[in-house]
């Protein structure tokens, strides 16, 4: 049996690991103790390797583990980081000082793509800025009937096609095509072993989960409401859909959006929308999504739709990194960029260029017809 103080320290280490986003539970704490007992706490190389195998669950954790281990158990850092926190909690910042400075250096304006194509597009061509805006938006037009009718029609059509998706798994179906020998024989027992009634199987239908990440920063202000209406129409048709707004931070709005009372929906959205039409930090928002939501929401039948112009003021490389992690989890990633419809547009904005290799569909979606085309492309890719 280990000494009590050592047990507490090990538990603190597991808690630190957990705070840093590792998927470890109570069982792992217990097993970490058992390993420490069998291997012995003095042989620290073997213990490090054994715990790494136990506590890590994916490649990036595997590579981060050594730093966390050292920062907890090695002396100079231990005094700094552990004594202040009895339970060893608190996430330790990863070693990305160089990148963080780039982020702090202030707004880096990114021109490169032309006007958004509309007469009043001055706001949409300014690029991104890092400052958060304090204003909230006016949501009164969100449910105006004339604006939403056309959108509703397109979305209803999309939802119907979505419901027809099939998988390779089978389920029993009278009008199916494949003979279900198993069921046929099982049911033939009642008739004395004569398979008089045949049973069939057909491919199971699935409804994939949709996750919408809508950029509502100032550079997207021309389109924000349009996408919000689309999201509302989708939420009304589909049950398994999750909508997030992001600008400088990420907000989950599914609940507010699907509120049946239009007035209350507007009020709730107005409260949630602090920062609307402000700056953009797509990379940070995706990182927040990956850390807090992805494990819970994204499974292998999830399609993620990101609506953004790709103007990002966050740290370089972060957007690409986070999008790659997200692409590994999700089935498909669709990026809708209204600027793509502008003649001569090339995805030169840094954020967009970083994102491109990880996308399954890159579409314009600046109006209803092109959005319909984008959704059709998504259907084909699902």
């Amino acid at each position: 049996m280990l000494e009590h103080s050592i047990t507490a320290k090990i538990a603190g280490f597991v808690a630190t690991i957990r705070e840093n986003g590792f998927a470890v539970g109570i069982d792992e704490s217990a097993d970490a103790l058992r390993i420490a007992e069998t291997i012995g706490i003095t042989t620290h190389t073997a213990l490090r390797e054994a715990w790494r195998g136990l506590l890590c669950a994916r490649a990036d954790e595997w590579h981060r583990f050594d730093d966390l281990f050292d920062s907890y158990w090695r002396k100079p850092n231990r005094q700094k980081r552990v004594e202040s926190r009895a339970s060893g909690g608190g996430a330790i910042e990863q070693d990305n000082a160089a990148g963080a400075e780039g982020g702090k250096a202030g707004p880096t304006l990114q021109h490169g793509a032309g006007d958004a194509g509309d007469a009043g597009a001055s706001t949409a061509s300014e690029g991104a800025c890092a400052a958060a805006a304090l204003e909230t938006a006016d949501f009164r037009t969100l449910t105006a009937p004339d604006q939403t009718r056309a959108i509703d029609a397109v979305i209803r059509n999309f939802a119907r096609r979505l419901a027809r998706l099939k998988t390779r798994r089978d389920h029993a179906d009278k009008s199916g095509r494949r003979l279900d020998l198993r069921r046929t024989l099982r049911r033939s027992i009642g008739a004395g072993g004569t398979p008089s009634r045949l049973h069939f199987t057909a491919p199971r239908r699935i409804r994939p989960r949709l996750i919408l990440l809508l950029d509502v920063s100032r550079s997207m202000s021309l389109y924000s409401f349009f996408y919000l209406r689309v999201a509302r129409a989708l939420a009304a048709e589909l049950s398994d859909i999750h909508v997030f707004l992001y600008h400088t931070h990420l907000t989950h709005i599914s609940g507010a959006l699907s509120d049946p009372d239009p007035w209350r929906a507007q009020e709730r959205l107005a409260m949630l929308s602090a920062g609307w039409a402000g700056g953009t930090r797509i990379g940070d928002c995706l990182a927040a999504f990956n850390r807090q939501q992805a494990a819970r929401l994204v499974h292998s039948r999830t399609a993620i739709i990101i609506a953004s112009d790709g103007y990002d003021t966050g740290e370089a490389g972060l957007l690409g990194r986070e999008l790659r992690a997200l692409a590994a989890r999700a089935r498909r990633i669709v990026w809708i960029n209204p600027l793509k419809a502008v003649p001569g547009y090339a995805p030169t904005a840094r954020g967009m260029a970083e994102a491109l290799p990880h996308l399954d569909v890159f579409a314009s979606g600046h109006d209803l017809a092109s959005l319909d085309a984008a959704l059709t492309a998504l259907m084909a890719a699902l």
Partner: protein
Amino acid sequence: MDSAAAIATLQQNLRAAGYVAERSLAVTMLMMESIGRPLLVEGDPGVGKTEIAKALARVKNTRLIRLQCYEGLDTYNALYEWNYQRQLLAIKRAESAGPAALGDDELFCETYLLKRPLLEALTQPVAPVLLIDEIDRADAAFEAFLLELLSDYQISIPELGTITATTIPLVILTSNGTRDLSDALRRRCLYHFLDYPSFEKELAILRARLPQTPARLAGQIIEFAQSLRRYDLKKKPGIAETLDWTAALLGLGLSALDEAGPEQIRDSLATLLKTRDDILAIDNATIARLVAAAG
């Protein structure tokens, strides 16, 4: 228990079985037994994930049972299935033999049960090594089912009753990352990330697998393969490819890389480079440079 000695012994045994394992992998494999968790191995294709299971089976001197996963894999292909054809034959035979010649129990007994890998692994007298290969290719529903099986080690067959594992198999899962696995399964497993090997490790593997390779050629081959991995290739050559290439060069009767011209090496590179873009990217000048660098 002297853990350091146990680790060294396992490493030695693995090497004798033709697998060169780092210390960290040996530690993890020992833990598999001591705390009874499956091991999840991830890494690029061709770094030797599947070999771990084969080597472990050889070291433990036990059976290797392999379940290859694919999209649409279901319990009937992974767990068990009744042999309907034989059951039908038995019924027909019993019919011609007269009434009451065949009872229900006789029809649903082990004779007519087709054991698929998972059931097979649970009913072995000696604990086998169960390799669940490329689990990322199966869908999420199968993963959830597997999670349940790996925690209880029992299966219930409606016609037969619950079958509890006679011995707990050593389970190794591999994943190439075509789909991210659920956090629940990851949490349940021990984890090992297998990277491309270092020069020394790859040389040791080559020595263990193809001992007839001349020492100079072996060194050159590994140096060549290691520097090839630093190029921006679509498919980086793994250890399996290096071994294939060595076999090809031995077949050509070479005792050193610089004996052969770039053309001859280029022809044999088909074993190392597997996409058209990669073959085009490595031209004769590059090959000559790599050979010169390999000494």
